[in-house]
């Protein structure tokens, strides 16, 4: 039960029920789907002068997947691309249970509990992968993850 409480912290359920930056506005985007489970997330971002001016998400999935997308948007809006890339790779470490200092991840730090549920890591990372691809210029496509 402790692992569960850790996984489903209040902050996560809060992002799930009241997501930030939900709804697409037409910026460059990447749509990722996990056909095995039905998680389906689109992340869009507008980058100007190396800064993420706007970032939004849209999609369907479990609470972990949706909350993670909301946390990602909250964290990245207004931040530089280089910050974003660094934090994305930190986030991957976090959900794999690697030691480190993750305070800079903000609310997303609360997803550390996923590490105890390996089957759910992909739920947490799908939106982060999508942003990573958008920042690489891999946009307007639909891909499987």
């Amino acid at each position, binding site marked *: *039960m402790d*692992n569960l409480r850790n996984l489903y912290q209040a902050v996560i359920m809060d992002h799930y029920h009241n997501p930030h930056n939900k709804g697409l506005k037409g910026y460059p985007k990447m749509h990722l789907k996990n056909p095995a*489970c039905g998680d389906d997330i689109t992340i869009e971002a507008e980058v100007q002068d190396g800064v993420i001016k706007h970032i939004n998400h849209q999609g369907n*999935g479990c*609470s972990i997947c949706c909350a993670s997308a909301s946390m990602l948007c909250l964290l990245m809006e207004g931040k530089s691309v280089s910050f974003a890339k660094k934090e994305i790779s930190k986030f991957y470490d976090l959900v794999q249970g690697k030691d480190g200092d993750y305070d800079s991840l903000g609310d997303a730090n609360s997803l550390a509990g996923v590490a105890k*549920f390996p089957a759910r890591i992909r739920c947490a990372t799908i939106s982060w992968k999508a942003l990573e691809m958008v920042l690489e210029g891999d946009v307007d496509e639909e891909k499987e993850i």
Partner: protein
Amino acid sequence: MLDVKRIRKDFPIYQNNKDMAYLDNAATVLKPKIVLDKMNEYYTNFGVNIHRGVYKLSYLATQAYEKGRSKVASFINASFEEIVYFKNASEALNFVALTWGEANLQEGDEIITSELEHHSSVLPWQQLALRKKAVLRYLKLDESGRITVEALKEIINEKTKVVALTLVSNVFGYITPIEALIKEIRKYNCLVVVDAAQGIAHLPIDVKKMDCDFLAFSSHKALGPTGLGVLYGKKDILKGIKPLFYGGDMIDNVELYDSTYREMPYRFEVGTPAIAEVIGLGYALDYLKDIGLDNIKKHEQELTCYALEKMKDLKHIIIYNHNPDLGIIAFNLDGVHPHDVATFLDTDNVYVRAGHHCAQLIAKKLEIVASLRASFFIYNDKEDIDKLIRALKKAISFFYQGE
């Protein structure tokens, strides 16, 4: 009820997972020790290739392998040459579309199937229809999601060339009234392909009585090993089919520019087969027969009644099949994603499926992205269901806090 305590002793996985409630039997079932032992015995004592060597060990291997085929044939009342091996049910079903379908279907011909199908039962025909400009038609499921004779009568006609249906729904546990359907289908000149993946270990199957043309299932859903599928094909129909794969083992006489191939079923099986798996499946079917298919069905039905009775008292639960014929219950907690629920159950070692169960068409019809599915088999008891209910209650009190 079956003697579950005794049965579990035959399944070594329970020794290593003492308090698990394995309720994902529609995905695959656990394996009894006899199957593992017999596969091991092959590798340990006479693990050589078949149909080739003239030495003693090869003879032993060939005999054990062919005995496996006889057991499969007798299990479904077919004859030896009507049993063809593939990798799984999916591949077997594809084979029918790629051979018989490719050779016989023409533009404008009609194929009937249902929205209840597993992807492997419908996609081979969907894609063939696209290639041939044939028409794929879905019979109308009744309000509870069942395939009925009336619905078939509504759409079958002189242009119908294939009817491809599942014997048991892997989402709802409904048994298709296949014999009554086939009686109706026989008024027309068309092929009947039955996907028995979900039926093989749960109800008695007699292909002669059923009068289907093809019937496919996977070994792994019948207590056998993975990597092996069976296709039954009526002798006269198999005779008219050309091989799909060419190479070792399936040939008779090889010349530079043409060759002849062996009798059925061998002409359809290229290369070294899954020898240990075929041997294992034979013993798996023996095990099922010993318990008795009718007893298995009854056991599942009792567990299902018990589970439904308990589940209906849970708050926020949505059940999608109130009257399953076999041990499958599809459900959700209202407003909670099934993966979140499944993780709660997982923590208590209650293993259920969460997803679309390879049947997206029915999920789309129900307008749900995914659902939970609990499915029962011979080693499940009421205690497993109590565990499921307890874990569900935990999830409910967590996800609906403050209510």
